[in-house]
């Protein structure tokens, strides 16, 4: 008979888990594997609340295995290292993002694209190689193969830097891959939430002109004065959208709700690129004519490999880029989730795990 979450591993662990699709989180005792030869054990200090966590706790994608301990924007300190570990020492500040394992042999893994490995294992709600479930960062400790652990730059604040481990790499990776980093070019960022606000900052750091495209006119002041965007386009204003036709070289579309792509495609110049990183539940309507006539493309991207995630962290450290966060206690997570469902956060909740997770 399968062991209980508390018994299946030797290291005791404690966190908050959702037990059913109400998505309500509550205290949860479980366990972590022994620190293997290639593993590091991490005491978790902070964990960002990603919108994917909300989708998962409510089983909106249909593959949640309860109980689920979410959290894949983890920053902490190393407390134990396995005997073969070379990259980290006890006491070092580290990060863990969206994946904790992969096959290490396939073409994707060989190309440092572990995130595209067909056997990639998510930080939570996946099965480890030993057949047990993975649990995420809304918890006190985590044990991870050193290959999937990131060195967290010293000059990045661990709380405001935590969201970079998912939100940051999610926008950084496609910007590099699709060649959206040429200084002077014009980037549109659709949606101003966790992903969008980081995209604005990273875009500016690449020397791009950045326009935020949003349905909410009241975000304009913040977008321009606080985040540093160059301009703001209200997508529900037909006249403004018409005036902006054919002005953008690239667009990062962070919007997860079902939304029309045609207006965004019309904003692109010839050879323009629309990259979707949000995850709408249903397929989107795609007009083909504008793509053909303008040689435009729509591409997807899904987080990034470990090497690139480290590169992104170092880039953000160099440019002083962090997320704008609201620090919360573990006990307030359910309220935070409710507010997140209404996009009522500027722009990421981060759980102060070390100071508020108590048994």
């Amino acid at each position, binding site marked *: 008979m399968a062991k209980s979450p508390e018994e299946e591993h030797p290291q005791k662990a404690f966190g908050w888990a959702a037990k059913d699709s109400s998505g309500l989180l509550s205290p949860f005792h479980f366990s972590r594997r022994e620190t293997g030869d290639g593993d590091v054990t991490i005491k978790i200090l902070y964990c960002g609340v990603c919108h994917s966590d909300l989708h998962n706790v409510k089983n909106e994608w249909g593959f949640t295995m309860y109980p689920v301990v979410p959290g894949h924007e983890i920053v902490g300190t190393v407390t134990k290292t396995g005997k073969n570990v070379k990259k980290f020492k006890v006491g070092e500040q580290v990060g863990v993002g969206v994946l904790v394992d992969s096959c290490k042999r396939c073409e*994707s893994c060989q190309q440092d694209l572990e995130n595209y490995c067909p056997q990639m294992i998510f930080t939570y709600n996946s099965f480890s190689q030993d057949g047990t479930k993975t649990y995420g960062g809304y918890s006190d400790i985590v044990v991870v193969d050193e290959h999937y652990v990131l060195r967290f730059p010293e000059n990045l604040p661990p709380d405001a830097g935590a969201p970079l481990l998912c939100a940051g790499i999610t926008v950084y990776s496609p910007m590099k891959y699709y060649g959206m980093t040429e200084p002077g070019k014009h980037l549109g960022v659709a949606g101003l939430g966790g992903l969008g606000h980081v995209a604005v900052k990273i875009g500016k750091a690449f020397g791009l002109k950045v326009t935020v495209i949003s349905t909410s006119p009241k975000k304009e002041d913040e977008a321009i004065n606080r985040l540093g965007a160059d301009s703001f386009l209200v997508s529900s204003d037909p006249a403004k959208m018409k005036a902006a036709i054919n002005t953008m070289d690239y667009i990062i579309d962070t919007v997860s709700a079902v939304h029309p792509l045609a207006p965004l495609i019309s904003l692109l110049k010839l050879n323009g690129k629309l990259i979707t990183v949000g995850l709408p539940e249903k397929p989107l309507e795609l007009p*083909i*004519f504008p793509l*053909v006539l303008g*040689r435009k493309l729509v591409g997807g991207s899904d987080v990034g490999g470990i090497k690139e995630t480290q590169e992104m962290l170092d880039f953000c450290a160099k440019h002083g880029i962090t997320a704008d966060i609201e620090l919360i206690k573990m006990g307030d997570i359910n309220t935070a989730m409710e507010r997140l469902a209404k996009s009522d956060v500027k722009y990421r909740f981060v759980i102060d795990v070390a100071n508020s997770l108590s048994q």
Partner: protein
Amino acid sequence: MAKSPEVEKPNKAFGWAARDSSGVLSPFNFSRRGCTLATGEKDVRFKVIYCGVCHSDLHMVKNDWGTSTYPLIPGHEIVGEVTEVGSKVQKFKVGDKVGVGGMVGACHSCDNCANNLENYCSKMILTYGAKYYDGTITYGGYSDTMVSDEHFVIHIPDNLPLDASAPLLCAGITVYSPLRFYGLDKPGMHVGVVGLGGLGHVAVKFAKAMEVKVTVISTSPNKKKETLEHLGADSFLVSKDQDQMQAAQGTLDGIIDTVSAQHPLLPLISLLKTQGKLVVVGAPEKPLELPVLPLLMGRKLLGGSCAGGMKETQEMIDFAAKHNITADIEIIPIDYVNTAMERLVKTDVRYRFVIDIGNTLKSSS
């Protein structure tokens, strides 16, 4: 008052035109500009010998896209022999074998024009059914003569048969350009071609010449033998066969999708490897459904492409000449053209009709 088509220009011309959206073509007297006037000094005039029948011609004669004005002489896969050149023409002389494709004018001052992408110029002038610089309507290649600014004229190398190379001027460049632009031209790559018609069959030939492994994806199982034995494709997938499609998942570096009808994208996206590229060159009228998650999970992309610039069109023709690539055609006399259009609606042609203009288009006067 605007002059009639017959007299608006100095040189008499004869062709077949559609008069209304029934799309039925019939004899039509009109006129072309000359090369001797100041405005014609960069023009090349040629006797049309063959003209390919592109599916766009069918859409245009029937006003499927709502942009047609009548009378309309279609034809933008035009080949012939130069009979006259303007005084400032440098690239062509009388007797040269030449061709004209989908466009005959552009602004020459925008970034696109400067980058040899005249096809994407916002002021690009289509070979037929468009307003030329002088305000008159352009007439296409279902006619006895053609006049074009030399910038938009292509040299046809001597070793290419004129009839079977005519379709390259539209079909050829339409598939060649994206194979290059999207990097699907590297030896050893594996590319899928969806739809086996005018565009598709030429795509197979170009890709094979680029040493790319080719899989044709089609709804018609009866095209398999021809595809493998005659066109040289490496394999054939019946898109309605779930098992075949499943087995082929994640095998293609890219796909050239030539299908204009509405069709599902998800099965095609699934055939792509990680970082694979689905390129659409057919133009369905209504939007298609784009499943976003599969795009994300494999970092895949869907991009469009439309014909090609003049420099690339010449490059494509020269490549075709080097590799002996021509279209598979059915030559028809001009008075068969309406029947050909009806057969084209049913895709009953292997794989392009080409009108034998030189031998069968004769003015009754």
